[in-house]
């Protein structure tokens, strides 16, 4: 019966892990169960090359001697003994469950299991029932990061392998879709949304893309290790600064008493004024992004009237005309 590949890989790991000395390829071919299936020298070397890469992908330290023999040093193969304080364990337990979906969710729980099994405690138990403080910490606080964007997985894989990606991207809501070719440096979650930061090859410049605006499939192209991300770029601040902070200024408006609770959260009442035959309160509110503020005002309909500044007043009138219909928005 042909041996499964997993069986051959496991036998290779065990053989090299238990060797005091480096083992050359002919020893491996001869002694390790599974390689006898190779029909020719060429087939064996192809098989062995692939196997080496897969072990390295798993983080198994496969060392090569100057004359091309191999071994796996046990000290580097296994996770060293780790001892964590109860509050460190609480932090780790939360961290291991942060990821909601994708490969990272599985990796997080796998990492927790390894750390637990590498622990100094001789008795393996359930860390949560053993430590009430830990159970409390993990039940009172549940952080979660979702990675539901279909583009997350292929881009994460490309970031790891340092391979180029191409995808169709809609820059803004109304914009057309363009194909972008990007060296993906890394992924950032900012205000609940995922972004990829990288180097846009066609534009020869650093760019940030929101994953939810990628249309269709992400294609990975070219070889692995095609680029080196710059060391001095802090991805989080790149994304944070890509939406520039608005100029802080204030607006004055008249609001019907009792309405506009949202606007009033950051408002100061500075007087009153008459709208039609009603007395409204005069509020001063901070204006962040002009159109966001305008939308907040327009949502209130006749319950809010802008007095200043001029550009906010114009924006509000334009939105109201659009909502009324019959005129161009």
């Amino acid at each position, binding site marked *: 019966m042909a041996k499964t590949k997993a069986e051959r890989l496991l036998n290779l790991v065990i053989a090299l892990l238990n060797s005091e000395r480096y083992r050359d390829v002919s020893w491996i071919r001869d002694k390790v169960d599974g390689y006898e299936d190779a029909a020719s020298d060429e087939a064996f070397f192809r098989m062995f090359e692939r196997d080496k890469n897969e072990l390295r992908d798993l983080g198994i330290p496969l060392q090569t001697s100057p004359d091309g023999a191999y071994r796996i040093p046990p000290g580097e193969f*296994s996770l060293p003994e780790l001892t964590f304080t109860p509050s460190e364990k609480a*932090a780790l337990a939360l961290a291991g469950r942060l990821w909601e979906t994708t490969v990272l969710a599985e990796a997080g729980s796998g990492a927790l299991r390894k750390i637990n099994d590498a622990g100094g405690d001789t008795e393996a138990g359930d860390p949560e029932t053993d430590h009430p403080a830990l159970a409390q910490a993990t039940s009172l606080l549940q952080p979660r990061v979702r990675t539901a964007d279909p583009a997350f997985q292929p881009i994460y894989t490309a970031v790891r392998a340092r391979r180029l990606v191409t995808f169709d991207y809609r820059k803004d809501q*109304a914009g057309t879709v363009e194909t972008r070719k990007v060296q993906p440096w890394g992924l950032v979650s900012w205000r609940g949304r995922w972004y990829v930061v990288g180097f846009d090859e066609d534009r020869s410049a650093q760019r940030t893309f929101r994953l939810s605006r990628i249309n269709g499939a992400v294609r990975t192209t070219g070889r692995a290790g095609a680029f080196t991300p710059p060391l001095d770029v802090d991805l989080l601040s790149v994304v944070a600064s890509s939406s520039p902070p608005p100029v802080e200024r204030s607006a004055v408006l008249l609001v019907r008493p009792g309405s506009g609770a949202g606007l009033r959260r950051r408002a100061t009442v500075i007087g009153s004024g008459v709208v039609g035959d009603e007395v409204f309160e005069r509020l001063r509110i901070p204006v962040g992004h002009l159109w966001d503020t305008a939308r907040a005002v327009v949502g209130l*309909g006749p319950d809010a009237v802008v007095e200043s500044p001029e550009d906010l007043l114009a924006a509000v009138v334009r939105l109201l005309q659009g909502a009324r219909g019959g005129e161009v928005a």
Partner: protein
Amino acid sequence: MSETATDRLARMLALVPYISRRPGVAIGDLAAEFGVSAGQIADDLDLLMVCGLPGYYPDDLIDVVLDDEGGTVSIAFDAGIERPVRLSHDEAVALTVALRTLADLPGLVDRDAVFSALAKLEQAGAGAAAEVRIAAAAPAPALGLVRQSLDEARRLWIRYYTASRDTLTEREVDPIRLLVTDGHSYLEAYCHLALAVRHFRIDRIEQARLLDEPAQVPLWVDEEVPERMFHPDPAVAPVTLRLHPAARWIAEYYEVQQLGEPDEGGAIVVSIRAASDDWLVRLVLSLGGAAEIVDRPDLAAQVITRATAALAAYSDPNS
């Protein structure tokens, strides 16, 4: 089966030390822990039994001791796989990125513990990865008091801004837990005003005060984090909207269901569960014609009426 040989190898290398530390562990428990079927675990164990040291005499092979009646398993010889393999790249990323995210949540976790855990992982060869970064949640002033109410299990009085109704309400709530998700932190609590469990965005808590009453301990807390923090009124029927390109962001912002493909102008039709009719009118009004209500002519008429009334204030020469 889509599993690769590498995935299977990783699981088998983890199974050996896991079982060794828990002699007599049930196969069903292994299946749950490793997220695969019991049949897959049985196949893995069969495979482990034929692997071992070169020579492959009976004493060289991994000795898996199965108790078929009890459905349990132990390991008598591990062929050198005593300890878990070092963290893989993905595992290191998952854990270190998550820890750094926690460190950015002031007041929620013991930051010193997070940093010392990170340092220990780094010593174990799992350095912090820079390729994935997360800004977990914007800071909110009420967070400290909310955290205290949870720790002391005390009832909390809050003045809360409900965006979906554009109102401020005062409520007494019994805190259950804190959820940090999608860029915001939420207090999950039993609300004595709504008489139900609700999620309160911490940055919308205008004011909070600890009360002397102890919080009622919930009988049962769902382990899972709910998919949505927003509780649409089941009595309110979904409404169909046409979103022109300038309003398509609505589909990214709110829970909507897209109906069909975009038309040639780029407009999409979506079904949305609004918190209330008033909220929907405010939303459509604020979009200035970029969204239209398709199947509720009464609400569409309200939008036009309110827009017309509002415009009257601007054409008034006195304003």
